[in-house]
């Protein structure tokens, strides 16, 4: 039973490899329709599938491959000449075979799809082309002997397969041996296509025949011989290895490297020449072994590109375009996990290039280009990364149209859009749902293309860039790491005091000295490092209402303390040295304050156990050179935890809007005031109804709230220091400073500690601080100032304030 399953698995694996090869061969064949070597290869692939399917009694599969084989047999023997109609029919057959194989893999059965139309089409071509060749005036290859030859070549196959095939495959040979029985669909198809196909075939026939007639038969034989001789040799030189086994070997080699490092340390101090020698040999061998094992996981990018000739061909046919595909750097190697990950995004990109990039032949002609467009895929290594470029010589990006569409969709304000560079505008195509296609085609235009490319590439730590010359070309540049398993990372430290209960437990921490925790930060997230020393450290960091920010070249950079983010019991810092790691999370930057920065290192990413997966702050773990484990920080997770980034995408959109609004109304008068002991805040002067001083004794309590009688009405008071800072107001006899805000006859008073100033300032809200009651921070008079969220604070203390207004 298990032996059968094993055989079946082999069969499926082998067949899918065969099919991939077939796709490539067919497209190559179209370029060079009379290439007998290719035809021979295709024939053998199909023949192999057919033979094995007979063995497994997959009747449908056998039938389908059989007609295909018959047709191929004739092509190979030079009885027929290949053209795009035949290629399409054969490709349809390959697709049918693929679907059957998928079904077998999934369910163990062939599925109930009906392939009779494909079979009929292939049989019809077989039949008709016979005629077309017979009609050729000078038949260098007589039609009759090859028929014998072909049947003899093809004949063994039905019999050789299995007992079931003899009954099942019988209707098929009938179809092509005896002239058409009045089957409904083949004749219909035939009448439709007859006027087209013979002229396509006949002009080709004579010249090709003349060229190949003398050596035709012997060549075919040679090919066959060569194939037989070469086949087993190639098969023997490779074996299939389970990937998990490779991963395990890889792990062990990693460990061996660590053990080697330790031995080398002993070797360095040892006087024993024999030991030193042996350890040096160990060193060399381990390095070589490591390189070798790494190599086993690498695959050429050609494995993904294989299917593109077919994709491009089909798509170009569907769109009525002519597209040549050029592959450059097909041998560029990538880790197999990456190969998997880039498959879909690359397919998207290529489809896009054909459908949107390359124009129709008429348009191209009008623009003075050659009718056939070219899509170039290029891959190369550069700086420890793999670069992949997908470029087309098509129409390029219509920047103005994208700009207009972006404004229309509300992605950007019109005035802002006008100021954006073409390159920035080009990046709008990466927005989800963005499409400039006038109509949705079968292939693209739904607007789910480029954002998928971008997100998928970014998921594996890559970047996507786009450059375009309108009317000339578009190039999509993708940069991805060589491997997912090994990433460059910055190692940082963060000291922590052992917690009391822990200290008792693991015995290790009997000394009270703080432990240095090492963490790895993936280099992709890293922007820059900032080191503040001495006085700079004291002045550089500003605190606003519990949030710390640093002014990095005029921009506010929110700071996150790693020890706080991880709830480590941090050692009291001396504050004369501050290390800020500037990181990018989503589209937001923030600074991570760490105790120490060690070095960048290539680390091997290992997953965390299931019980720790819930902690979003860690992306995984790695083993450091000394054999100890270090955690890898998930920058986005940390950012979310520290509220630097909230609901990522929506936030980004809102931000763009508020920012463009803020840009629009450039200068505004602000009322500056102080809340609590030291927090500077501001509200637009236009929102202030009056400033009042209220004697403390006049404050009364009503309904659990502080109120004062004010101009014949009751004015509710909101103490901002308590509301925002949770500080109790110091009860003094001094009068209270109240800012009165009115809306539609209702008023509320904000109690602040001190009114500071009224300034006119260009406001650029940096919505970096996501806190209640604060809209964001602005720089006023060179100082960081919080902008009060008036509505937010009122709504929080009196939810009915705006509601009642509505009712009234």
């Amino acid at each position: 039973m298990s032996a059968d399953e094993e055989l079946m698995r082999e069969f499926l694996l082998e067949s899918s490899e065969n099919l991939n090869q077939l796709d490539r061969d067919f497209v190559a064949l179209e370029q060079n329709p009379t290439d007998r070597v290719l035809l021979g290869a295709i024939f053998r692939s199909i023949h192999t599938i057919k033979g094995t399917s007979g063995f497994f009694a997959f009747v449908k599969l056998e039938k389908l491959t059989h007609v295909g084989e018959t047709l191929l047999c004739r092509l190979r023997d030079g009885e027929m000449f290949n053209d795009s109609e035949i290629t399409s029919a054969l490709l349809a057959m390959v697709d049918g075979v693929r679907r059957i194989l998928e079904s077998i893999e999934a369910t163990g059965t062939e599925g109930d799809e009906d392939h009779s139309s494909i079979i009929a089409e292939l049989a019809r071509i077989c039949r008709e082309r016979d005629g077309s060749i017979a009609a050729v005036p000078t038949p260098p290859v007589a039609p009759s002997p090859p028929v014998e030859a072909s049947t003899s070549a093809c004949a063994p196959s039905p019999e050789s397969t299995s007992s079931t095939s003899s009954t099942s495959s019988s209707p098929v040979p009938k179809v092509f041996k005896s002239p058409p029985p009045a089957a409904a669909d083949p004749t219909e198809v035939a009448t439709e296509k007859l006027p087209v196909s013979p002229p396509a075939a006949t002009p080709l026939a004579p010249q090709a025949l003349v060229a190949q007639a003398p050596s035709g038969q012997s060549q075919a034989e040679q090919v066959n011989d060569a194939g037989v001789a070469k086949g087993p040799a190639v098969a023997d030189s490779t074996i299939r290895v389970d990937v998990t086994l490779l991963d395990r070997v890889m792990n062990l080699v990693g460990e061996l490297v660590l053990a080697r490092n330790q031995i080398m340390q002993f070797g360095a101090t040892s006087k024993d020449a024999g030991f030193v020698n042996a350890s040096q040999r160990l060193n060399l061998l381990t390095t070589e072994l490591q390189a070798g094992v790494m190599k086993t996981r690498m695959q050429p990018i050609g494995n993904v590109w294989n299917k593109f000739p077919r994709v491009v061909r089909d798509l170009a046919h569907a769109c009525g375009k002519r597209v040549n595909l050029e592959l450059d750097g097909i041998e560029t190697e990538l880790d197999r996990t990456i190969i998997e990950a880039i498959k879909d995004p690359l397919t998207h990109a290529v489809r896009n290039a054909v459908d949107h990039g390359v124009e129709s032949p008429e348009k191209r002609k009008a623009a003075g280009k050659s009718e056939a467009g070219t899509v170039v895929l290029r891959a190369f290594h550069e700086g420890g990364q793999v670069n992949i470029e997908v470029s087309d010589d098509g129409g390029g990006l219509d920047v103005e149209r994208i700009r207009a569409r972006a404004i229309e969709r509300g992605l950007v304000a019109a005035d802002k859009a006008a100021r954006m560079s073409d390159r920035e505008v080009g990046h709008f195509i990466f927005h989800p749902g963005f499409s400039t296609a006038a109509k949705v085609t079968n292939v693209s235009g739904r607007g789910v293309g480029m954002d998928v490319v971008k997100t998928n590439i970014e998921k594996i730590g890559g970047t996507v860039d786009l450059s375009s010359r309108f009317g000339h070309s578009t190039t999509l540049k993708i940069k991805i790491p060589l491997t997912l398993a090994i990433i460059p990372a910055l190692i940082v430290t963060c000291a922590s005091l052992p917690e009391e209960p822990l200290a008792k437990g693991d015995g290790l921490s009997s000394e009270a000295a703080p432990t240095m925790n090492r963490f790895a930060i993936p280099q992709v997230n890293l922007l820059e490092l900032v080191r503040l020393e001495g006085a700079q450290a004291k002045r550089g960091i500003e605190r606003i209402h519990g949030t710390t920010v640093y002014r990095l070249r005029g921009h506010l950079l929110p700071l996150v303390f790693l020890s706080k983010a991880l709830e480590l019991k941090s050692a009291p810092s001396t504050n004369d040295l501050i290390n800020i790691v500037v990181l990018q999370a989503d589209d937001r930057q923030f600074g991570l304050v760490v105790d120490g920065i060690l070095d960048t290192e290539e680390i091997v990413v290992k997953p965390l156990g299931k019980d720790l997966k819930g902690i979003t702050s860690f992306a995984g773990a790695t083993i450091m050179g000394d054999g100890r484990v270090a955690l890898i920080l998930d920058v986005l997770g940390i950012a979310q935890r520290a509220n630097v980034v909230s609901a990522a995408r929506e936030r980004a959109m809102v931000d763009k809007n508020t920012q463009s609004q803020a840009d629009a109304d450039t200068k505004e008068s602000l009322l500056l005031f102080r809340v609590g002991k030291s927090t500077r805040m501001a509200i637009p002067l236009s929102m202030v109804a009056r400033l009042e001083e209220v004697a403390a004794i006049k404050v009364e309590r009503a309904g659990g709230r502080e109120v004062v009688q004010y101009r014949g009405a009751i004015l509710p008071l909101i103490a901002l220091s308590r509301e925002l800072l949770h500080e109790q107001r110091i009860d003094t006899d001094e009068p209270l400073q109240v800012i009165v805000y009115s809306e539609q006859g209702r008023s509320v008073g904000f109690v602040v500690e001190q009114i500071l100033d009224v300034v006119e300032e260009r406001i650029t809200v940096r919505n970096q601080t996501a806190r209640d009651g604060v809209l964001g921070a602005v720089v006023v008079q060179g100082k960081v100032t919080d902008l009060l969220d008036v509505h937010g604070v009122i709504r929080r203390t009196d939810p009915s304030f705006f509601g009642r207004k509505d009712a009234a």
Partner: protein
Amino acid sequence: MAQTRQLCTFTLDNLLFGIEVMNVQEVIRFQEMTAVPLASPVVRGLINLRGQIVTAIDMRARLGLPDRTTGELAMNVVVCTADGIVSLLVDEIGDVVEVDEKTFERAPETMAAGFRELVPGIYKLDGPLLLLLDAERITNLGSGASRAKSEAA
């Protein structure tokens, strides 16, 4: 026809525990661990097991027993569960004992619920009682889950 099973035994706070021997991958001495901030307090850290990163769970904390006194080094019992490999930190390793199913009895209802969840039953050996540990349930960190939830909130 007495049915028997083999249990790998170890002690925790002077109690004798046993775990199905087939679940145990290996037993190793104390390993240096890397603490995991934000994790459940039951998770004592991560150890490097020949290139594989394994979570170490302090069984004393997991069972609600008092902490080890300073200076006592825990042993690692590496077990395979459906969720992967974890290391259980225990006091001392005992023998592999063969127990008779006839001596098995369900854990009394009076045991603390958290304890009883992990200890489905007791083997009445001639000497001390042998508490059977359910390896699969150990990694089911209720506290860890609630921690994750509070983090999300």
